[in-house]
């Protein structure tokens, strides 16, 4: 059997067996609609409430502070648009980091077309924002700051508690996109002090199309989906019961297993990083070297292009990602890499590894065996290798 090493867990994960088993009855035997008045419905409503409590427990929230969504993108949209529309009378200035996911950036850009102003906050060479700079940028019209807890592209973890403190003191709502963190590191919304947090089922090994938005109790939010009474009128539409059950089960398992997962992936990741740096010249580790997600490694490889690298690795059974999928399909250089000061031609050689608990040391050894060979092959074809452009990339 061909060897397969899957290291793109930020994009997709296989749904856990226990999660699938938990979901199955809700496709046929227990198919009721939670909004119906008879027992078939009220029973399902009770099930949904139990899942809500499980997701809340994972992030230190109250059950009534959870809105189930179709994923991280919807949660981000709901956070940005929900706050901006609901609090227009208070102000019309929004601050987001220049490195946010497209679902945050484009939601913010949408408001530039209305009578709102958006500040795209610069980051440093590691992708970190400066809480002091946020304090300076907040003005009387500022209503919302949105900074992702961590980046799926470069792994850097932001100083969320400090930023939350700044926002609280200034009376401004603070949202964090927690998609890269919930399921990968411990997240406690009360300790962090955030007003809103988005999460996705994918890092939890729940089905795609599941997620949630945490919103601090008492926060006014304009719904995106106006409809019936689902999610207390904050997100209309008949609930995706099997998906919600899957998310709840995955959250429950994650709560129990997270410390072990973190230890496991960190060891493998560290081996991968030192192996890559040692065996391949002119390669740069992107993101913060220490304050980063434990299972995340990202590099820029001089003189080769990311898509070619990904395809060549996949022909060896190794599945990784290159920069931002949205960017690469649109033929744009990753805005995140440009924002941290990576020169555009080096940014083309972006490669991102996101590990999971199913990865083994054998997987890493296999990657360290094949990667230098693949890089060498692409560099032998490249007009940029071996000439003036081979100035040190890893500084």
């Amino acid at each position, binding site marked *: 059997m061909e060897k397969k090493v899957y290291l793109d867990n930020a994009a997709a994960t296989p749904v856990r067996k226990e999660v699938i088993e938990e979901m199955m009855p809700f496709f046929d035997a227990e198919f009721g609609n939670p909004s119906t008045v008879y027992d078939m419905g009220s029973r399902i409503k009770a099930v949904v409430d139990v899942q809500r409590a499980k997701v809340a427990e994972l992030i230190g929230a109250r059950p009534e502070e959870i809105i189930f969504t179709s994923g991280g993108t919807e949660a981000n949209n709901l956070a940005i648009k929900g706050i901006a529309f609901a609090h227009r*009378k208070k102000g019309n200035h929004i601050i987001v980091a220049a490195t946010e996911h497209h679902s945050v950036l484009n939601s913010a850009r949408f408001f530039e077309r209305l009578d709102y102003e958006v500040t795209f906050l610069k980051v440093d060479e590691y992708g970190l924002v400066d809480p002091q700079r946020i304090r300076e940028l907040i003005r009387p019209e500022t209503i919302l700051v949105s900074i992702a807890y961590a980046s799926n592209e470069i792994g850097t973890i932001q100083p969320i508690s400090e930023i939350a403190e700044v926002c609280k003191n200034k009376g401004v709502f603070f949202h964090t996109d927690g998609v890269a963190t919930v399921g990968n590191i411990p997240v406690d919304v009360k300790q962090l002090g955030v007003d809103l947090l988005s999460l996705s089922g994918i890092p939890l090994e729940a089905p795609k199309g599941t997620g949630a938005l945490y919103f601090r109790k*008492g926060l*006014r939010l*304009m*719904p995106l989906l*106006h409809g019936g*009474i689902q999610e*207390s*009128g*904050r997100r209309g539409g008949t609930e995706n019961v099997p998906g919600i059950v899957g998310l709840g089960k995955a959250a429950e398992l994650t709560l129990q297993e997270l410390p072990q997962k973190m230890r496991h992936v960190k060891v493998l990741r560290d081996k991968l990083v030192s192996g890559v740096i040692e065996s391949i010249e002119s390669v740069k580790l992107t993101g913060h070297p220490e304050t980063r997600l434990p299972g995340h490694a990202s590099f820029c490889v001089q003189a080769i292009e990311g898509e070619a690298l990904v395809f060549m690795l996949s022909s060896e059974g190794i599945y990784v990602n290159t920069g931002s999928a949205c960017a690469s399909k649109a033929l744009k250089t990753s805005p995140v890499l440009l924002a941290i000061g990576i020169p555009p031609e080096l940014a083309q050689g972006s490669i991102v590894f996101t590990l999971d608990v199913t990865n083994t040391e054998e997987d890493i050894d296999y990657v360290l065996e094949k990667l230098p060979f693949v890089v060498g092959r692409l560099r032998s074809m490249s007009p940029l290798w071996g000439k003036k452009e081979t100035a040190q990339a890893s500084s």
Partner: protein
Amino acid sequence: MKFVKDIKADDTLDLVCRMCPLHLLEPGEKLACMKEGQVLEVLTDYDGALEDIPSWCEKCGQEFIGIEEDEDCYKLYIRKKKGNGDGKESISG
């Protein structure tokens, strides 16, 4: 439409940004947990509530005190007339 001012409320229900039929469901749930004589303040920006809530109060035997217009929403006041506040009773008649 009965307009009032400076009513002291025992609890507040914020329904701003949320629409029909929450404005008829949530007050009931909230009142079920309150004692007789206590006042619930309902905040809403939904115009339909101005007619619906007073009618609902009449139908369910609760006292509709009045409305105050605030900067960004309406404030509607309901005094609980019946029930023991254990959360188990049916408020909606």
